[in-house]
């Protein structure tokens, strides 16, 4: 009974997997085809854009005439489009995809000089399967490059590095060949723009002229070169693997596995961190108006302007002053952590309460604190006045505005720092403290000579990461003060935002970002050095 049940379940699972796989295939296939049709439509629009008002083609380099035998289907397709012209006209701007199976046609409307009314159409046969060339190419090149890199890594690790000279040469050639191959493939952009083929135009209603245009083919010479490189790279890489003297199988496998695991995060870092970082460097050397079309190279002018701008120095000073909240908060956080470092439900609740601000949105916090700081109706001034003091215009006064922001940040960060300190405190062995007590140390002495020294790495970590964060302050300033009053709360990231998005000066904002980056890099470097020294001490 149970065996039959298991067998049945297995069968069901197999079918489910098959169905799942089939469904995935269909979805991916459809998505793929859609992309390809979009590419074909783009291609068709390019053809349209290259036409004169009387339907002559002006500038379409690298295109071959349609083979005689291919005109028939296109003409038939165009007749179909003419038949559907009403629909085409109604959905004026859209590309129509018609046909079945391998034979698909993409039609885009052709408009008058004003781009106003549809006066015809261009029909392309979409060879959508050709689009597979791109991912295939990327896979092959990526695979080869990974293999070459992995092998180099193995060779470097190998103790027996005495390799034949021919092998070292082959090694270099293989890596170079793969790189060149990638470049060549990039040059043959048209390999990917596969959706192309035959074309035609309908002109007015009921008339059509077969166009002897189309289509961007693959540039044969470039393709040939790419293929030669690819082949060479494959051969040399394979030879390198075969001849590699010091590549035990397990190493090979380990190396490939390591690369495999690294690849996603490395790719992500390269695409979304390193890429933009380098791009801002490039931007910072240009006058880069977000909207303008000319973006001239201006060398270091942005940096020069920045260094000569008193408002930059003011923002830098404010940012540095602002970061002073970090050590102050740390003192509070350590005190709180020691206070709450006891078992019991009350303690747990209190810890959660102190930690709470850390998880709330900065904008919401800013709104609430704005009310607290309000000169006339604010909670803080109300308390001050009821204690017999006078109210302070916290955010309206240049000498208190920055301090007011620092207080908010301290309030937010206190919980986080407390949690880190708590972890540190709980990592201190009870035996050490016990020993100190037995030696006759009082509470203060225990803190000074045991707890504090053992917490130093934690403190250092908190200090440096805290300062790095504090240099990136933005939301509080943006919501609460907009850099005012009298620029008393103008900070670096707010300036970057303002220059980039309000003034559209992406180049200058990028220069500012690089300065901030350099500052933070310096701080991180200091942290690294200090932590290392700390490690040495511990050792």
């Amino acid at each position, binding site marked *: 009974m149970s065996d039959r049940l298991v067998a049945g379940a297995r069968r069901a699972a197999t079918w489910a997997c098959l169905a799942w796989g089939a469904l995935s295939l269909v979805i991916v296939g459809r998505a793929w085809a859609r992309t390809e049709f979009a590419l074909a439509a783009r291609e068709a629009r390019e053809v349209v854009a290259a036409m004169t008002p009387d339907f002559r083609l002006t500038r379409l380099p690298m295109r071959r005439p349609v083979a005689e035998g291919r005109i028939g289907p296109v003409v038939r397709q165009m007749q179909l489009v003419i038949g559907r012209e009403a*629909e085409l006209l*109604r*959905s*004026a*701007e*859209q590309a*129509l995809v018609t046909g079945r199976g391998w034979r698909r046609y993409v039609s885009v409307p052709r*408009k008058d000089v*004003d*781009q*106003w*009314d549809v006066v015809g159409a261009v029909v392309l046969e979409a060879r959508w399967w050709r689009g597979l060339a791109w991912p295939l190419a990327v896979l092959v090149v990526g695979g080869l490059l990974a293999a070459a890199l992995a092998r180099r890594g193995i060779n470097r690790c190998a103790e027996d590095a005495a390799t034949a000279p021919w092998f070292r040469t082959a090694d270099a050639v293989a890596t170079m060949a793969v790189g060149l191959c990638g470049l060549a493939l990039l040059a043959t952009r048209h390999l990917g723009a596969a959706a192309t083929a035959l074309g035609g135009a309908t002109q007015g209603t009921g008339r059509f002229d077969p166009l002897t245009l189309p289509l961007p083919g693959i540039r044969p010479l470039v393709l040939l070169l790419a293929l030669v490189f690819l082949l060479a790279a494959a051969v040399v890489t394979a030879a390198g693997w075969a001849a590699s003297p010091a590549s035990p199988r397990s190493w090979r496998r380990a190396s490939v596995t390591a690369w495999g695991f690294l690849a996603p995060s490395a790719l992500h870092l390269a695409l979304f961190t390193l890429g933009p970082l380098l791009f801002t460097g490039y931007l910072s050397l240009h006058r880069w*108006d*977000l*909207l*303008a*079309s000319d973006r001239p190279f201006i060398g270091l002018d942005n940096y020069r*302007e920045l260094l000569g701008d008193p408002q930059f120095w003011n923002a830098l000073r404010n940012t540095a002053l602002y970061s002073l909240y970090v050590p102050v908060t740390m003192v509070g956080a350590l005190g709180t952590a020691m206070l709450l470092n006891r078992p019991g439900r009350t303690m747990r609740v209190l810890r959660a309460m102190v930690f709470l601000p850390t998880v709330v949105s900065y904008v919401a916090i800013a*709104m609430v604190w*704005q009310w607290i700081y*309000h*000169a006339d109706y604010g909670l803080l001034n109300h308390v001050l006045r009821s204690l017999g003091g006078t109210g302070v*215009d916290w*955010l*309206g*006064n*240049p000498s208190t*505005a920055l301090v007011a922001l620092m207080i908010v940040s301290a309030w937010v960060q206190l919980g986080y720092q407390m949690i880190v300190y708590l972890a540190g405190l709980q990592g201190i062995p009870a035996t050490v403290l016990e020993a100190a007590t037995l030696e006759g140390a009082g509470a203060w002495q225990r803190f000074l000579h045991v707890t504090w020294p053992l917490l130093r790495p934690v403190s250092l970590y908190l200090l440096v990461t805290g300062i790095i964060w504090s240099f990136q302050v933005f939301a509080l300033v943006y*919501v*609460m*003060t*907009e850099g*005012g*009053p*009298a*620029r008393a709360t103008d900070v670096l990231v707010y300036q970057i935002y*303002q220059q980039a*998005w*309000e*003034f*559209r000066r992406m180049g200058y904002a990028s220069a500012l970002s690089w300065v901030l980056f350099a500052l933070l890099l310096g701080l991180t470097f200091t942290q690294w050095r200090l932590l290392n020294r700390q490690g040495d001490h511990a050792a």
Partner: protein
Amino acid sequence: MRGRLWLVLLALGCTSDRPQTVLRLTSWQTPAENALDLPAIRAFEAAHPGVRVESEPVSNQAEYREKVITSIVSGAPPDVFLLDNIDVPAFVEAGVLLDLRPFAARVGIDLEAIYPGVLSIFARDEAVFAFPKGFSPVVYYYNRALFDAAGMAYPRDGWTWEEFVATARGLTRDLDGDGTIDQWGTALMRPFYAWQAIIWSNGGDILDSTGTRASGSLDDPRTVAALAFLTDLVTTHRVAPRPNAFRAVTGNEARLFYSGRLALLPSGHWLIPNIRAQLANGRLRLGVVSVPRGPSGTVSTPLFASAWAVPRNTTHRKLAVTLAAYLAGADAQRSRLAAGLELSVMPAVQAAWLPRDSLGLDAAFERQVATGRPPWGARIARFREVEAQLPPMLDEVLIKGRSPADVARETAIRLDRILLR
């Protein structure tokens, strides 16, 4: 169960694959303001079967601008978007807007029927880059109840600075005698739009006529006198509270005004939708008067307008321009007038509305139009950079106690450098 499955499959099979064109429309308007556009959108959709308008509003104007710029630059623009007057120069210079003049007649927009002063904000030479939606001059609102309680006469258009100060003084009061002022005569707001008119109305300006230089204008004695007049309201005359430097509280002046603790507030027509209900039921009785004129000038006020624009790289040109025309047409203007959002850009529509204006404020607004000028933002592309330097001038005088002349001279030099860049 099986029957139901077939039904689902049938429904899936029946979904029409008839191509549907989607037009993307975006603006920074509030949900209530967007609702005013719905009749125009529905009418457009009814007239264009197979076309659907997708509204993508972004209520925060700064974020809205980021979104519009990036979408245009990246080649995926909205088909129609709301253009603020301050963005006209940059967008026009970058060549991203479609000249709508050749198509205006085809889509039923009569450009001659629009206030020339408003149209000029969105026009360059012969080209018209957007169909104006609505506009407003900057005026002073006054609370009639406070005037009545003080036994003072309502202000009249063309009043002078002296009259303004005297009025504000009469309306600034410590009602409960605790030594703090509970009712303010007026307010000084930091944003430049709120005090541009004061400078103009004394014959001064912030830039020269070409918009390329601030020295000679911003430090001109007439401009400096206007700055002194503004800051004196807080320091010497004590008829206005200290302008709060921070964002959420800039609405403070308006709140004070709504609650009857502020008598004179500079603002535009956009204030009205918030308080329409209170105005209609008489809980708030307001009047509208021109900005006061200085000793060496005549009344002059900026006209702030927005308009529906079409990016040049939209793929749906005809449909987009037609939609913009529906949104800017007379019907849409009428529905916005009725909601009290702004003045109509078409004098004929405005005139037909005035007899029906139950709040009785639009006639006073209408009178200010003749004194209106396009604001600086509508004229030079770098105005945002210029504008960012202006409110801190007030801080320097009010907080640091520096002389307006010094601050103006210093800012002028800085602006010259910015404009030279």
